């Protein structure tokens, strides 16, 4: 089942996404057209957002890094999250901002010291995120630093959370990114260096994982600069296709610019 959250008539609503694409209210079963809603982050109470750097062998090579011997994990603030078909902004006066199409696993059960063998019991489902990066802002302190990776709107997520049973095996899912219709990134989760069971074991040895925590598992190669006006579609086989519109900083912030 696909679980989503949308704004409908001014209120947040939990819905399921039906086979024909219609949305069905979990409250009263009402069927709603997608055209009448604004998509929200599918996780109602986002907890810790873990993201992986350099976790695809081909991407690490693209950035001229040796594949890491230990996972490169960083944290993102919930301010970064925005829903499907929403705007994300390009900061003023930068040279290079790229998308990162990532498979996200959502934790469904609290746990600590979880073994690799039990890891999948703690996952409720999957979604897609676009973990944008602004390379101009990288500094060699806690890299990738919060200025690069914790900006408002720069981690679109969705469209929905799909139950893990509906996806099954995640070790060879195709990932693609299209910018304005052109294929710019293509890879497979088969190239992941540290797989999800490893990451659950690794993180839960350090800390308690809780429902609503998310692990964004990294991105394959295929970087491209983004400009206002661009539309980016990050798609993962069996999971979903996440659409994001790039706007200028001024357009995004409006009166607060």
């Amino acid at each position, binding site marked *: 089942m696909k679980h989503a959250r949308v704004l409908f008539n001014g209120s947040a609503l939990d819905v399921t996404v039906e086979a024909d694409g219609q949305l069905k209210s979990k409250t009263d079963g009402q069927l709603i057209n997608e055209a009448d809603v604004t998509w929200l982050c599918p996780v109602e*109470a986002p*907890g*810790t957002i*873990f993201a992986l750097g350099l976790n695809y062998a081909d991407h690490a090579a693209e950035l001229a890094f040796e594949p890491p011997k230990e996972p*490169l*994990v*960083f*944290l993102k*603030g*919930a*301010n*970064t999250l925005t829903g499907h078909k929403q705007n994300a902004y390009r900061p003023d006066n930068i040279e290079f901002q790229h998308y990162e199409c990532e498979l996200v696993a959502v934790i469904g059960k609290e746990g*600590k*010291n979880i073994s690799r063998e039990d890891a999948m019991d703690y996952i409720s489902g999957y979604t897609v995120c676009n973990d944008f990066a602004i390379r101009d*802002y990288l*500094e*060699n*302190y*806690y*890299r*990738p*630093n*919060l*200025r690069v990776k*914790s*900006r*408002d709107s720069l981690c679109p997520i969705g469209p929905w959370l799909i139950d893990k049973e509906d996806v099954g095996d995640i070790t060879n899912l195709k990932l693609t990114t299209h910018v304005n219709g052109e294929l710019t990134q293509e890879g497979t989760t088969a190239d992941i260096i540290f797989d999800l069971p490893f990451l659950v074991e690794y*993180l839960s*040895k*350090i*800390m*308690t*994982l*809780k429902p*609503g925590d998310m692990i964004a598992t990294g991105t394959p190669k295929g970087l491209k600069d983004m400009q206002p006006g661009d539309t980016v579609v990050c798609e993962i086989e069996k999971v979903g296709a996440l659409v994001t519109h790039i706007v200028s900083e001024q357009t995004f*912030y409006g009166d*607060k*610019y």
Partner: protein
Amino acid sequence: MSKNPIVKGKLVCVALNDAEQFNAMQAEFAEAPYKGAPQQPVLYFKPHNTWSTDGAVVEWAQVDGSPAEQMVVGASLAVVFGKECCRVSEAEALDYVEGYTLVHDFSLVEQNYYRPDIKGKCLDTSAPIGADVVAVADPQALTVVTSVNGMVVNETPVSQLVRGVAELISTISYIMTLQPGDVIAVGFPGQRAPVAPGDKVHSVIDGVTELNNTLGQ
């Protein structure tokens, strides 16, 4: 979600903001992997599993299944936001603050600052946040004093920070919108104090608030 009633969304901490430490590290900053002193505030999150309270017992860290050889603590003045704070100037920054409290950051020994220190900083219960949120006219005039088992180990005047409270609020508010219940810990002493299992850690800002924690076994 939170075991602490004050912090609701984000706990943002500022590293390398003690001027004494910052100046002493200049030669190290010039070398690999840093290749230059930080140009921006060095920020990290303490995520929600770390949040705990005044009076709480802080778990002694486990590293690969064995008790950690060493933990350290630093205390910081903490800014608690009372309203949404997005892209504000330094001049207006303090208007968004509900009040001030203390944060203890318990961690493993800081080895280096190149990669995010998930292993060292994200330990369960390692970020106790004070019980009181107190209005203060001039946060730059405050001093944080930390004692371990009754012995003073650190005394950090906020005026000694590389970047002050208003500047940090402004800079961070251009990166991420801060919400009511978000907290910024503005700066820790460069020399974090070593602690042992069972130690009692006490920090105080005179006339404002205090924070007491005990290390677990």
